[in-house]
């Protein structure tokens, strides 16, 4: 079976911060239409890796290809313009702005007609309506006022806002860095459903998570990250969770078959 | 002497006041004429003493022969002036005498008290009998009240016949004719706002003292906007060209004209003479400084107050 070209590919990526090595010659592949889970210990370099492929940091060495073309993103905006939508672990929300403002930051909806075209006036009512709708889809029923500042939200509510934003606007690739870490049981389940939804629209997804049951439930392939590099890739249908945990904590070395994946 | 050009320094209070710009012009012209290498320095705002100290230190370091100085803090500057004189540098105070006056080798000055006194006397004569019921607005410089501010203010009041009490302190007189003192920072905007406030305190003001001509222009704007332009007489000090123009236009009644350009070029000449054979300039007759003169400029000359015409003022403005 010949593999298709990866949508997003990284080869030999290195990122050092002074004395600290965050990514150490790591590779990365995301194929069309798949859910790729990335797992690894805390500090293994997962977030750094996806920051490198989404333009949030510029790697010291290595190559990144989008649909086979070499790219060099100097900023997250360039990556976003190329269709890569990312929910970062620190969420990237503006604390003092309202939920609706945050969801539409950088792609606001303008009023129709003169007001919008010439005065560039925003359509607040519409943005608030859509924001409320997206949050309800995620089951975040405890958000009492859509005009609340994001800094007044609970940790989980905040994460919900960030995930809703990415899901609503992603066009080519969606990257989620621990999207359910602060979410409750119900809200996490909704996010997993949303991810499957998105995949069924044909978009590939990168999911970083420490929740093994979730990962094994929805991932098509699992990228195991350890000490700044891709240790191996495993198939959740063949491998057991205990293997995955053993691999990422260094309790076990990867087998041949895994490395080839 | 050994082919090296003579070095001289000019240190002024600020570089934003046209008065000091003229001074610099005079010095530069003369320096060029006599082949002197001139460096100029200035404080950032009126009263910026530390910058002047640093300037003098730099002059010492640069090996200057003489320093022309308009001091911001006339008492405090004496220490560094002594250092300079100890190095054999001729220090001439321009415009403002140091305290004590012999802290400098020589002083080329207008008498600022005299300048104030002249406009005071003129105003008194102009108002005539009304002078007893005058309502006077005093537009001063800054809250820190540097010595020009005090000298002109107190000179004006004593010229007008107000008992100034302590001549070193602004605002301690008890004469009811003085409506109030406000500060202007010596510019138009400050003059206008200060005048507006004083007019509100007493709309009958008929005599306005201003620290300089920009403040006077601002005061006139305020009077004009209150519809009182004809009610009050404005007097001022400096005699800069726009100021004399304003006297001509009737905005200002009279102004005391000073001659900064002359002060500075005389200063340069003195430094050259000193560098040649060590002669120091002599004070004017009966004074402890070299008087460079002050003239009242007005076309409305008053009995007993010597003055020159506006035309003459324009010819000589800051000459």
């Amino acid at each position, binding site marked *: 079976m010949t593999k298709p070209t990866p949508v997003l590919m990284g080869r030999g990526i290195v990122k050092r911060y002074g004395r600290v090595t965050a990514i150490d010659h790591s590779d990365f592949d995301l194929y069309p239409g798949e859910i790729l889970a990335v797992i690894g210990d805390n500090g293994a370099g997962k977030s750094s890796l996806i920051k490198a492929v989404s333009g*949030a940091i510029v790697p010291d060495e290595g190559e990144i290809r989008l649909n086979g073309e070499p790219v060099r993103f100097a*900023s*997250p*905006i360039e990556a976003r313009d190329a269709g890569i939508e990312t929910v*970062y672990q*620190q*969420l*990237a*929300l*503006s*604390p*003092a*702005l309202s939920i609706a*403002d*945050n969801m539409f*930051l*950088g792609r*606001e909806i*303008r009023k129709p007609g003169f007001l919008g075209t010439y005065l*560039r*006036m*925003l359509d607040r009512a519409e943005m608030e309506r859509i924001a409320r709708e997206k949050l309800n889809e995620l*089951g975040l*029923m*405890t*958000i*009492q006022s859509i005009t609340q500042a994001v800094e007044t939200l609970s940790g989980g509510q905040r994460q919900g806002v960030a995930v809703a934003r990415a899901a609503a606007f992603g066009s080519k690739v969606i990257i989620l860095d621990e999207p359910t870490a602060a979410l409750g*049981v*119900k809200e996490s*389940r909704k996010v997993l459903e949303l991810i499957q939804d998105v995949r069924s629209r044909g978009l590939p997804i990168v999911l970083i998570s420490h929740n093994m049951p979730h990962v094994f439930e929805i991932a098509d392939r699992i990228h195991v990250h350890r000490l700044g590099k891709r240790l191996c890739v495993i198939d959740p249908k063949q491998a057991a969770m205990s293997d995955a945990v053993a691999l990422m904590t260094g309790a076990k070395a990867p087998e041949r078959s895994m490395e080839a994946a | 002497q050994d082919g090296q050009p003579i070095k001289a320094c000019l240190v002024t209070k600020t570089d*934003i006041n*046209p008065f000091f710009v003229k001074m610099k012009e005079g010095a530069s012209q003369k320096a060029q004429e006599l082949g002197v290498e001139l460096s100029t320095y200035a404080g950032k*705002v009126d009263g910026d003493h530390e910058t002047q100290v640093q300037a003098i230190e730099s002059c010492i370091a640069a090996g200057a022969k003489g320093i022309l100085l308009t001091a911001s803090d006339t008492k405090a500057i004496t220490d560094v002036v002594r250092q300079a004189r100890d190095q054999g540098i001729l220090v001439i105070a321009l415009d403002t005498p140091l305290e004590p006056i012999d802290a400098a080798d020589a002083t080329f000055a207008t008498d600022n008290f005299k300048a104030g006194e002249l406009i005071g006397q003129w105003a008194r004569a102009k108002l005539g009998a009304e002078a007893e019921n005058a309502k006077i607005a005093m537009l*001063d410089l800054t*809250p820190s009240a540097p010595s020009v501010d005090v000298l002109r203010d107190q000179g004006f009041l004593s010229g007008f016949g107000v008992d100034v009490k302590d001549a070193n302190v602004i605002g301690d007189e008890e004469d009811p004719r003085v409506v109030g*003192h*406000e*500060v202007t*920072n010596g*510019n*138009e*905007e400050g003059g*206008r*706002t*200060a005048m*507006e*406030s*004083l007019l*509100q*305190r007493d709309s009958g003001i008929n005599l306005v003292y201003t620290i300089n001509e*920009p403040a006077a*222009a*601002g005061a*006139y*704007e305020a009077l*004009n*906007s209150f519809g009182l332009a004809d009610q009050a007489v404005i007097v001022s000090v400096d005699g800069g*060209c*726009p100021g004399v123009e304003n006297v001509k*236009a009737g905005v200002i009644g009279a102004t005391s004209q000073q001659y900064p350009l002359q002060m500075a070029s005389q200063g340069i000449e003195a430094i050259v003479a000193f560098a040649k054979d060590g002669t120091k300039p002599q004070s004017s007759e009966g004074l402890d400084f070299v008087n460079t003169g002050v003239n009242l400029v007005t076309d409305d000359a008053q009995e007993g107050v010597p003055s020159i015409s506006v035309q003459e003022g324009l010819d000589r403005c800051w000459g």
Partner: protein
Amino acid sequence: MSETTGKGADYEASLKDSDTSVAAFEHKSRGPLGTAQHFLHGNPTMVPVIVLVMSVVAFGLVSPNFFSAFNLSLIMQQVAIVGILAAAQSLVILTAGIDLSVAAVMMMISVIMGRLSVELGIPVPLAVLIGFACGACTGLLNGLLVTKIKLPPFITTLGTWNIFLALNYYLSNRETIRSQTLDAEAPLLKLFGERFNLGGAVLTWGVVLMVVIFAVLWFILNRTAFGRHIYAIGDDKEAADLSGIRTDRTLIGVYVLSGVICAVAAWASIGRVGSVSPTSFFEANLESITAVVIGGISLFGGRGSILGPLIGAIIVGVFNSGLRLAGVDVLWQLFATGWLIIVAVAIDQWIRRISA
């Protein structure tokens, strides 16, 4: 290690029955005090207004002249220029920056407008337009230094303050262009000093201009994407970057806009001063920042309403005017101004606290 997963094997099954209504709570009806509190909580801009009203009343009691329509409109005239500068300053402060160059830019551009029309005889409208263009350039310089060279705004504008001040002195030769000359050759430059009557109060077009500028900025900041981006950048620049805002472009836009507003202030200042003076408004930098802070905008960016600085500027004007009217000695004016700044903001903070 006890193993509990068996029991919870499909513990998520019950989720389909979960509640789907948005959370809502009863609110007991509040007394008048509670209502006031609640109102202030929702409208923090009203807090400086209360401080303003309190100080107007206080000065009204002290000095009888204070409360006339005439005096109140005079205060507005005195405030107009600093108010317009405060508007420019607010934009920059909202992005967590600070613009120390506003006063220097204004002074320099008023000189440019004046020299162009009086000395070169260029028609006033053209001279004004050139002035606006120069204002935009000063803003562009600041903006490029802040975004491309990544200098802190404080340092950038401290540097450009010196530069523009030097240019101002150079271009003007430190000489004032007299009121009479302007009247003769370029009366339009004094446009914003023209007075008109409004129900007993005399106002200048400069005051109207100030109000219009604040209204326009309010619209931009609250009703357009550009405005929301300004808040987002001031709030957390990194987050704004990551969420895909073109922060550099927005920041440059802010500085250019601020420069243009300074140019507008320059025009208005000629009307206020009556002449083109290269030394007036030297103090306006600090005053504009004071107005912004008293108006409740955080120096750390991202928080506060643009209407605050308008009120803040008026509060400062009321203090200054009230103290002068009361005939306080210059020295004690300085002293009282110090305390009044502190007390005004303390009251503001206190009202915010009890209404939180």
